[in-house]
């Protein structure tokens, strides 16, 4: 096989597939996807529920169907793939070390790289969940793999901690498979996943969600036998007199996702401590020239459609970098989080890109505002460059705003852009 590629994409989830397609469509000849699983598609393959494609295709697809659309395009474009292959190391000069059973130890060179490793789930240790350590405590995504890919039921009587999307989707899935979901507990005073998942997965199936309530103790020596639930105040302190033992055999955790950037760090990529993903520009190039990042590896998205869109942008950037052989020094403007905004991606915009492309900004709110809000992008003088009205702002749902090419002139003059979300 070849040793050198124009673009190597690591990961074949929605971000990686879109990046590979866009790289091909923007002039890269040799594009390779390296995937650690045995099939293309990433986590989409275990997401057999619908809800994918509404934004990009105006179509409601299950995850594998959505993935298949891009897999076929990837293959049709002549993208090379290496399956069942793990990348061990990446150097800043874009050498990739990987292994698989068939070809053994591989050393590959890339003119540009797109990191698309996705994210991992937070575990019980990361939230310091007290109690015993028996079998029967799973992250929601691991349980999803057991049920939807392996065809195995990891329990019969569940409690789910966290109102993240995968947790709520698994509540429905397990109920359909004949299991009982006793309760969904959420430590925050608000939902952390999408409202539509709350309606379609919990309300429609009569599953109880309790907010400001959490697991105080896991009980059981060999297998989970029960959990002790407790209510908490706004500072997460247990409220006396609110303990309840809930008998169950399984505890699922849906308590957040973390972009998976251990490989990025090895390549010298700098990470934003707020997103846990790389600092990126509007084509998703990291601080390391020629190394791009796309999808949940940058920040955790709530809709796969936006991951695909980010993959397209990163793939285009990677192809341009690979074919021009060097990075053009660009004039950039930094974006920062303003009022009630936790973070904004991208972190900076290459001003010249705005002449040809629109740039989508993705933000998360800090505290919920349950009334009409205005999202604004303002320059250093408080001049509004772009704005968008929304019905509400919730931390669980990403705010999205497009800066159009028509703002090119005003952005050209800006030295700093700040994003705010305020009540209207």
């Amino acid at each position: 096989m070849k040793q050198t590629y124009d673009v190597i994409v690591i990961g074949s989830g929605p971000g990686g597939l879109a990046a590979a397609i866009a790289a091909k469509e923007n002039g890269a000849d040799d594009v390779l996807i390296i995937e650690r699983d045995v099939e293309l598609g990433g986590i989409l393959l275990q997401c057999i529920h619908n809800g994918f494609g509404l934004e990009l295709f105006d179509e409601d697809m299950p995850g594998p169907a959505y993935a298949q659309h891009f897999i076929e395009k990837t293959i049709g474009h002549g993208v090379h793939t290496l399956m069942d292959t793990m990348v061990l190391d990446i150097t800043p000069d874009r050498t990739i070390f990987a292994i698989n059973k068939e070809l053994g130890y591989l050393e590959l060179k890339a003119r540009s790289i797109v990191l698309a490793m996705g994210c991992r789930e937070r575990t019980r240790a990361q939230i310091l969940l007290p109690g015993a350590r028996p079998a029967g405590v799973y992250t929601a995504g691991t349980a999803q793999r057991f049920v939807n890919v392996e065809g195995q039921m990891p329990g019969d009587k569940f409690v789910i901690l966290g109102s993240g999307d995968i947790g709520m989707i698994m509540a429905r899935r397990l109920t359909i498979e004949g299991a009982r979901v006793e309760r969904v507990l959420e430590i925050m005073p608000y939902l952390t996943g999408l409202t539509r998942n709350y309606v379609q997965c919990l309300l429609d199936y009569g599953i109880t969600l309790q907010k400001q309530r959490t697991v105080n103790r896991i009980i059981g020596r060999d297998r989970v036998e029960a959990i002790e639930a407790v209510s908490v105040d706004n500072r997460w302190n247990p409220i006396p007199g609110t303990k309840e033992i809930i008998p169950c055999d399984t505890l699922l955790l849906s308590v957040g996702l973390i972009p998976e950037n251990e490989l990025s760090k090895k390549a010298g990529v700098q990470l934003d401590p707020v997103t846990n993903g790389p600092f990126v520009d509007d084509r998703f190039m990291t601080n390391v020239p020629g190394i791009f990042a796309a999808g949940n590896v940058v920040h955790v998205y709530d809709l796969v459609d936006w991951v695909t869109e980010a993959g397209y942008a990163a793939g285009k950037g990677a192809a341009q970098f690979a074919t021009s052989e060097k990075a053009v020094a660009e004039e950039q403007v930094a974006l920062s989080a303003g009022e009630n905004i936790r973070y904004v991606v991208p972190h900076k915009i290459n001003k010249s890109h705005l002449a040809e492309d629109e740039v989508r900004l993705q933000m998360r709110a800090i505290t919920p505002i349950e009334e009409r809000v205005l999202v604004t992008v303002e320059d250093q003088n408080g001049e509004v460059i772009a704005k968008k009205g929304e019905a509400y702002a919730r931390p669980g749902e990403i705010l999205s705003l497009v800066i159009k090419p028509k703002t090119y002139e005003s952005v050209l003059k800006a030295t700093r852009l700040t994003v705010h979300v305020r009540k209207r």
Partner: protein
Amino acid sequence: MSKEYDVIVIGAGIVGSLVARYLSKYQLEILLIEKEVDVGMGTSSANSAAIHAGYDAVPGSNKALTNVMAVDMWPQLSQELGIAYERCGDYVVAVDDEEMRVLEELLERGKQNGVPGMEIICGDEIRKREPLLRPDVVGALWAPTGGISDPFAATIAAAENAMMNGVTLKLSTAFEDFIMEGSRIIGVRTNQGDFYARWVVNAAGLYADEVMHKAGVRPEFTIRPRRGEYLILDKADFQLTNTTILFPTPSSKGKGILVASTLHGNVIVGPNANFVDSKENKDVTKEGAEEIWSGGKKLVPAIERKYIIAEFGGLRATGNAPSPNPEINYNQDFIIEIPENVQGLVNLGGIESPGFTAAPAIALKVIELLKGAGEDLKAKPNWNPVRPARPVFRHLSRDEQARLIAKDPSYGRIVCRCEMVTEGEILAEIHSPIPATTYDAIKRRTWTGTGRCQGGFDMPRVVAILSQELGISPEAVTKKGQGSEFLFRRTKDVEKDHLTVEGLL
């Protein structure tokens, strides 16, 4: 009557496994029994992994004698067993004059115990050696013979080496009672039948008190489980400047919360020390995590909560045995004896910290006791002390990795992405002399599932491998033995069940 052994060892923790291993030098028929599905699942599976230099134990106690004696055994033992060990030295850190006075006492105690090379170094020097320590450190006690090993690997390798030399290991075999003729022990009754022997070694760890009571030995001796909780930090997020162990100055409460390197590459913080009601209560607690965290943070302020990837609890087998040395008044010593009121028992008890360090010396003491009791121990001419280590993919150079995959392609598939454990390593452990038959057994042997995703990625894959290699259904695969199954049924089985209930099938 079943086969008669010369020696039965009860309990395959680090102590029992090393006793069996050192006894296997001699022409003896030895049986090692363990109640769990694997060796080393009790106290040996949850501790600091420290090889203590020996300045902490009360001079003249069994703890002090075996600790200091064992420190000199670890370099050769670790070589022979093919396990990780590093004599990195350790520090006790003082932050004020009062603590400096305690360091002087420790130094004096260390000298009495025969600990070599200790010295007290000044604040500037210790901060130079470990700049991550809190800035107001005024001095430290440096013990160059302190070190770190791997208690999981040590126990497994010791038991394996014992088996290589003819020892029989029976897992899932729980001691129930002694078989006695008058005051002489002639065997043990277990849940797997009766086994006879001329000698029985009590190495039952947390349960050593209950075992000896069955023989009518030391009815006043009790073990109170004392729990220690630990936190593990992500190796990619945080490292100490050098591999070492940092202790705070001890107080009346104990050795205090240490911050230390592990030879798996992570930093460990802990333990606290709290008596608990049950010998199975290894719960982690909210209060415990806070206590450990504030202790660790006090010593090394640079650690951050988001670095935490694992939390666990372990139990110390804290006894109440007076020291056999009449010159000292100490009531928490190791029991290493042949009791006077029964025959055929070598009795070990109260083996808490520094038990892991002291274990090889305790094993030699057992041999001494047997010789002293008139056993004519004859060396085996062909005893092999070397247990060859199996390949650990992540520790190899690129060239070595490439050669290993070329030789055996199963080393070309990563099963645990955080710790970079390959399928080849997992298969090797499933087919090793003490087969890894559970998820946790694979975890202890290969480090699978110990990283930042805590098994989220590898668990379905390991369950599939265990199912295939052991020829059992995925539903029969367990975390740590019967009752800890991961999976209950196939997804679509529910339809059949419902039809059956309604009489339709």
